[in-house]
């Protein structure tokens, strides 16, 4: 048995894998959130397209000289999928182990220091997994987008989707769960990687809390912006422009 197998077989090894993959997924979330906020940037005067659509095109065209159209995008997607699958599989293995190891609950269960966030990591994680699948089928493939999905028209697709109250609700609830998951996960990963201690714990927990709120609110801003009318309906002129440029 190789050293990596031996490492992955133990609970501590698995936790370290979960922490590292979790950290990578967090970095992706930051980039994704910043990209989303381009919805508020309005129309690009040079192309006459929404800045959000320009950004979406940039993601596809980036590095096309080397890897071809959307080459870099697909490489990133594959890398992200691998990291995501490792995170989910490892955590599911750990959770099943933990469920089996506990001796059942006491007549009176009294929690002294665990939080709602720490106790909902597993169930919240599963909900997020379902949400990610829905989200990809919703905005990437358009399979579950029932309100006029047009490939490449990111701004218009988002606008149309978030005119429906239950879609807004799904996204907002998912982001609250994501915030809880991040709050516990972000400080926990320092503990798991052996970088936490009594002096660093409080600042780390505060930082995790701030980052969780920023990420959750940052993501929620887009659906709420479209639903509330802060982000205006796409003009037909701009959407045709996008279609012509594709």
């Amino acid at each position, binding site marked *: 048995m190789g050293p990596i197998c031996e490492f992955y077989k133990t609970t*501590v*090894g698995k936790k370290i894998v979960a922490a590292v993959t979790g950290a990578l997924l967090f970095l992706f979330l930051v980039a994704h959130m910043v990209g989303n906020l381009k919805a508020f940037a309005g129309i690009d005067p040079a192309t006459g397209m929404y800045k959000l659509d320009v950004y979406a095109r940039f993601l596809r065209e980036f590095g096309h000289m080397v890897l071809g159209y959307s080459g870099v995008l697909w490489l990133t997607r594959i890398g992200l999928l691998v990291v995501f699958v490792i995170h989910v599989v490892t955590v599911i293995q750990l959770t099943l182990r*933990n469920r089996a190891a506990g001796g059942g609950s*006491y*007549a*009176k269960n009294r929690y002294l*220091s665990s939080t709602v966030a720490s106790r909902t990591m597993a169930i919240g994680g599963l909900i997020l997994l379902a949400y990610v699948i829905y989200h990809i089928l919703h905005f990437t493939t358009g399979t579950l987008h029932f309100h006029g999905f047009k490939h490449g028209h990111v701004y218009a697709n988002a606008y149309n989707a978030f005119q429906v109250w239950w879609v807004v609700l799904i996204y907002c609830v998912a982001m609250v769960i994501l915030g809880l998951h991040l709050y516990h996960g972000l400080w926990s990963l320092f503990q*798991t990687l052996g*970088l936490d201690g009594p002096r660093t714990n409080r600042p780390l927990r505060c930082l995790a809390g701030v980052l969780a709120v920023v990420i959750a609110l940052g993501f929620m801003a887009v659906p709420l912006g479209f639903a509330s009318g802060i982000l205006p309906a796409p003009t037909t002129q701009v959407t045709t422009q996008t279609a012509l440029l594709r």
Partner: protein
Amino acid sequence: MKLTLYIWRQKNSSTKGSFERFQMDDVSPDMSFLEMLDVLNEKLLVEGKEPVAFDHDCREGICGACSLVINGQAHGPMERTTACQLHMRKFNDGDTIYIEPWRAKAFPVVKDLIVDRSAFDRIIQAGGYISVPTGSAPEANNIPISKDDADLAMDAAACIGCGACVAACPNGSAMLFTAAKVSHLAILPQGAPERHRRVKAMIERMDSEGFGGCTNHGECQKACPKGISIKFISLMNREYIKANLASLARDKGEVTAQ
């Protein structure tokens, strides 16, 4: 004091247990929790009934034998206190008290409130020692150790191995126990030569005993009668990472001329 007790009764590890209700009418507030159980057992013996089985030894809070979950808290409601050092004055007249054994898959119930904690012994056997010739005690100052390191090692070495950390953990994890034992040796120079082998062996043993993993709830450090911090879990994780990196770099087998 009048108390209503609900005590877990279980014949052995293969039978199912249940709570039995006992009424106590004359509990002195000066009794320790275990003395209160002694009084109950004397009464049961006089009545010709089976006394309640529970673990105890020193009754001074240093041996780690007592193992009662009192109202859902390992060692009861007082912080940094073992069940034997808990006194009845911490309860009110007319209280209802639930008394249960440690609950974890790796700690099977032997009888009533007694659980088998030999899994801890096997974790220690896997690496919780240093290999040196024994004999007369060495001169204390032969190996200089900084005060900070000595204090830190002592904080970890305060573990009495009672298992309250496992009992309090929703995952039935022995990470705090194992971490305390790994840490107090890893911090000191005497533990250095075997540190990599030790942390791997003890974690592997911990896993194979059926303990769960850590999810950083922090319940263990609150339940610990010695107040051992989860900082040591962090320290053990770091030891484990270092040990694995070292084994990747280490030469295997005979070192030949290059």
